[in-house]
């Protein structure tokens, strides 16, 4: 069938600069650039271009630039190019539109409507360059009160905790969705920084077991790669119920991505689809969730905290309350902008609620019920910089997960082609030719650099607020003010209007 889709981008090649070195040909995994030996010319099949900028960055003579194809449809606010082109794709295939990364639509980003306070005159700010600043965070259930024996030893039963040197973890990305080199980069960066990465639902490759004490091992509905040794390996076990990019639906790792090594780690035959069902078939209620939480506590002999991850949805606060009562030591909320290796586009862009609102609602609810201490709260979904992180902690989070930001540190340009498995940056692919593009030595360094930079910035903001421990900031919403928000929004966020 002739496609009615126009090319999205134009590849401009400056022929005076081009030296026919074919780097762009070799780097492009979407078959855009090709060398015509007869004419000694590089040509471009622009209809394939996704604007990932791999060729632009690697062209040694800066001969390339990529632009939006200026081809304009007649202007129509309702029928914008995306709406038209989506319909064309579906008319030509009769199938579900897939996409990668997080929701790219225009829903309000509340981080941009929140501003932080700083000390002026009446209270002194702190200079983090010459005074100690504490970012250490412990995740896990905290007792209601602590009782001491006469000899001052602790009588209260304490629960397992995981220590983070910085309140930033890497979000769950499975082996299969991302490559082993990407996971190794994560594992080495968090080991250096003193935080955690998350296996996602694809099991743990034998090569990465040595990073176990900085690893969260995930148990999701497909139960891929879950066995006693795997559960023992991690610092924490996470039950994944939902994901912000696709609340309420499962995951399909397409058979093409199930290579020999992926099949070994997931323990399924090579080339079959790895299907993660929409629900856990042993969790149909809060009571069932409790059963799985305690099954995992038994399986790990009560030595590790158990976390439960859900997508932020309308009744997250009530669900979170149930999760805490079910025995979850850590609650992970993944918001509307949470990212993915592949999700139906219509779900990604239309289902779930912004993480800022979900976080505020959950923190409120748990406080009202006096059970906030019984679980740590971790949030994710669109966190872009250290300012977002400080705002999240000030709204009530204990720590955050970053996914897209971590991938951008590795080279990702958010071209949203993860679902194709052709990632030219070698991140979201299992093609061995492409996965080599991530060197774990360099990847780990880039990630550790990002965490270091953000840590310094967080300390700077804290110092300005006159706070020297991240704990003093947690849930301290008086440090926040809203701008451009309605009363209802301010009310849900639990913050006052700027100026008040």
């Amino acid at each position, binding site marked *: 069938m002739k496609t009615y889709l126009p090319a999205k981008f134009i590849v401009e090649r400056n022929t005076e600069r081009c030296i026919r070195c074919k780097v762009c040909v070799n780097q492009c995994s979407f078959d855009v650039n090709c060398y015509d030996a007869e004419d000694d010319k590089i040509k471009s099949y622009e209809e394939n271009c996704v604007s990932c900028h791999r060729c632009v960055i690697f062209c040694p003579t800066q001969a390339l630039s990529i632009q939006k194809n200026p081809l304009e449809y007649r202007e129509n606010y309702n029928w914008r190019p995306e709406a038209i082109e989506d319909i064309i794709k579906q008319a030509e295939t009769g199938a579900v539109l*897939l996409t990668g990364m997080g929701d790219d639509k225009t829903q309000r980003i509340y981080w941009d409507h929140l501003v932080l306070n700083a000390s002026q005159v009446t209270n002194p700010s702190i200079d983090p360059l010459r005074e100690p600043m504490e970012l250490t965070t412990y995740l896990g259930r905290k007792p209601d009160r602590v009782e001491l024996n006469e000899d001052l030893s602790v009588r209260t039963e304490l629960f397992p905790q995981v220590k983070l040197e910085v309140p930033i973890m890497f979000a769950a990305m499975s082996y299969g969705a991302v490559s082993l080199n990407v996971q190794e980069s994560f594992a080495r960066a968090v080991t250096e920084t003193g935080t955690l990465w998350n296996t996602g639902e694809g099991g743990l490759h034998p090569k990465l077991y040595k990073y176990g004490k900085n690893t969260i091992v995930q148990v999701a509905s497909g139960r891929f790669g879950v066995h006693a040794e795997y*559960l023992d390996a991690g610092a924490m076990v996470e039950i994944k119920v939902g994901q912000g990019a696709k609340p309420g639906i499962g995951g399909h790792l397409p058979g093409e991505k199930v290579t020999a090594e992926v099949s070994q780690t997931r323990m*399924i035959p090579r080339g079959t689809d790895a299907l993660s069902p929409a629900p856990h078939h*042993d969790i149909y209620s809060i009571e069932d969730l409790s059963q799985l939480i305690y*099954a995992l506590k038994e*399986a790990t002999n009560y030595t590790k905290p158990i976390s439960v991850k859900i997508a932020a949805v309308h009744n997250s606060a009530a669900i979170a309350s149930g999760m805490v009562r079910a025995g979850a030591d850590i609650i992970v909320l993944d918001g509307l902008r949470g990212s993915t290796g592949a999700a139906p586009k219509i779900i990604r862009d239309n289902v779930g609620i912004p993480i800022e609102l979900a976080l505020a609602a959950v923190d409120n609810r748990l406080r009202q019920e006096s059970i906030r201490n019984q679980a740590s709260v971790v949030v994710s979904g669109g966190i872009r910089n250290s300012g977002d992180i400080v705002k999240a902690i000030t709204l009530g989070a204990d720590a955050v997960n970053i996914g897209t930001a971590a991938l951008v540190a590795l080279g990702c340009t958010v071209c949203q082609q993860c679902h194709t498995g052709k990632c030219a940056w070698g991140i979201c692919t299992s093609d061995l030719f492409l996965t080599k593009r991530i060197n774990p030595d360099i990847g780990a360094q880039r990630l550790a650099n990002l965490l270091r930079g953000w840590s310094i910035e967080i300390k700077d903001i804290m110092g300005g607020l006159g706070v020297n421990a991240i704990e003093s900031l947690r849930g301290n919403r008086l440090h926040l003010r809203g701008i451009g928000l309605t009363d209802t929004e301010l009310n849900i966020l639990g913050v006052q209007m700027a100026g008040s």
Partner: protein
Amino acid sequence: MAKRVNVDTPVKIDATGVSHRELNIKLREAVANGAQKIQLHNVHGQRYIGTDLNKPVEINIFGTPGNDLGAFMDGPQIIVHGNAQDGCGNTMNNGQIIVHGHAGDIIGMSARGGSIFVKEDIGYRAGIHMKEYEEKQPVIVVGGTAQDFLGEYMAGGILVLLGLNLCQGEHHKAKFVGTGTHGGVIYLRGSIEQYQLGKEVGTTELKGKDSQTLQKLVGKFATYFGYDAEKILNHKFIKLYPKYLRPYGRLYVY
């Protein structure tokens, strides 16, 4: 220093009024002390029995164990002298569970290895999302019949339903059998209507290799529960298999 136990005499544990946590602590202790046979008496709904054990110890359970019996288990043999509840053998890796009675829902869910033998009937969603990898192949053999969603999303393993308690001419009861299945095999002794099967399931006659597999598994079943294997095998079986490796391959645009 904990005392060593004589490996031949079973260690007896009375589960009266003992929580699942305490019971599993006792089990771990007994196994750590080298026990090879353990008897649990007066079991009354305690969950997660044997969950984190990874030794080939034999555990005889008298009474009714609770949900998630042998979940994540890696090696023990559990013999239930009574009925088992839901989640028996959930995500099991290795070992064996033999139930001299009925078992509840989702038995063998996501199992990766090991075997489960149930004398009577089983509940809903049995064998859902079982897997296999090379020589690791989970097995469920059931003397009676099963409820709906049997072997849904199955990605590997062997499920056998013997239907011994069905009357002459009575079909198996389960509906939506094998929906979304993309691996593994189900053997049914007795009949089932086409409408009871998921649309990803094909039916066929047994071949030589299938009969060998069944002989082995039914032989074990007969030994455990005191049946005549010949009599069971001397009956028509059908084989249900996944029609596609990738049932949802054409779901997406790309």
